[in-house]
């Protein structure tokens, strides 16, 4: 296994759209192990997307199980993820390994349903909400060349950020 260098903006690769994974082979498994090690070595990181290490493929790892008192699915490896439905809107603070020293408010769906393949190419389906849903939306954005900077909303006029 190896730690992979994380790209930081303005690296143009972070603004590109990634391609679907078509082959689920040993090389993919080995890359995912490296990607996960890279995520684990980043303090406070709860997700990572393959393009963040310069591999323009639709692969995401999310693990929010370290956060207390939230619903989650544990360690998730999502390949070719597709969000099928969105519900509710919540504002939350986000940062990104690819955008050091900056955080900002972003509005995300409160709950989503998601289809993806696992590491072996088996189809999976998830319903998720809250913090985990936010993490998945953040990572899926990376696959489309979007950063949280593309979705910033003001910190001002913050008085009534109601949950739906």
């Amino acid at each position, binding site marked *: 296994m190896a730690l992979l260098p994380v790209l930081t903006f303005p690296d143009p690769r972070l603004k590109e759209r990634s391609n679907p994974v078509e082959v689920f082979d040993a090389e993919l498994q080995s890359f995912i192990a490296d990607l996960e090690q890279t995520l684990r070595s980043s303090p*406070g990181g709860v997700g990572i997307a393959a393009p963040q290490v310069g591999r323009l493929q639709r692969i995401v790892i999310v693990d929010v199980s370290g956060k207390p008192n939230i619903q989650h699915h544990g360690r998730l490896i999502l390949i070719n993820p597709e969000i099928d439905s969105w519900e509710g809107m919540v504002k939350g603070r986000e940062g990104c390994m690819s955008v050091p020293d900056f955080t900002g408010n972003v509005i995300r769906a409160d709950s989503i349903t998601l289809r993806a393949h696992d590491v072996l190419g088996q189809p999976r389906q998830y319903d998720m909400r809250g913090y985990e849903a936010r993490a998945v939306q953040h990572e899926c954005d990376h696959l489309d060349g979007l950063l949280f900077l593309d979705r910033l909303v003001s910190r001002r006029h913050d008085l009534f950020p109601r949950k739906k």
Partner: protein
Amino acid sequence: MHWYMLTLIGKDRPRIVAQITAALFEGGCNLGEASMLRLGGNFAVMLMVKFAGSKATLTHLITAVAESMELHLHIDSIDAKLHQHMLPDVSISVYGADRAGIVAKVTGVLAEAGLHILDLESDVAGTETSPIYVMHIEGKAQQGIPNLESALDSIRQQGIEVRLTPIDTLVG
């Protein structure tokens, strides 16, 4: 190169930011973090400027444009670094009928309970006859969030609405 903090204040009008920053750019300055906003019909600029020359040279560089826009100019030489952001872990919103001492009361109680304020914005809204005060604070709860929450009870008992929300920054 050295950092300076520029403060410019004057009656609000269009093009203040464009003219000031153009003069600084032409004078060879680099800009850092800034906060600029309209307060009570005035425009206030706080701006970090990196400049190779002296305070006197920087003052000279900007005085003509400041005067032409009737802005009061103040320059401090500061000990500063970029990329030193502290992450807030709590946000506090306050509103109530405007009355003397509301800010002192709220911030006093919060300081006592360990809040380090990183950002504060406040506004007087409502009408002349019944003004309301609205304040939003972000900061770091140095003695924990429960400590702040219980400290705010005394404020709520005085009829001031306060809402405290933890900021859990997602890094992905």
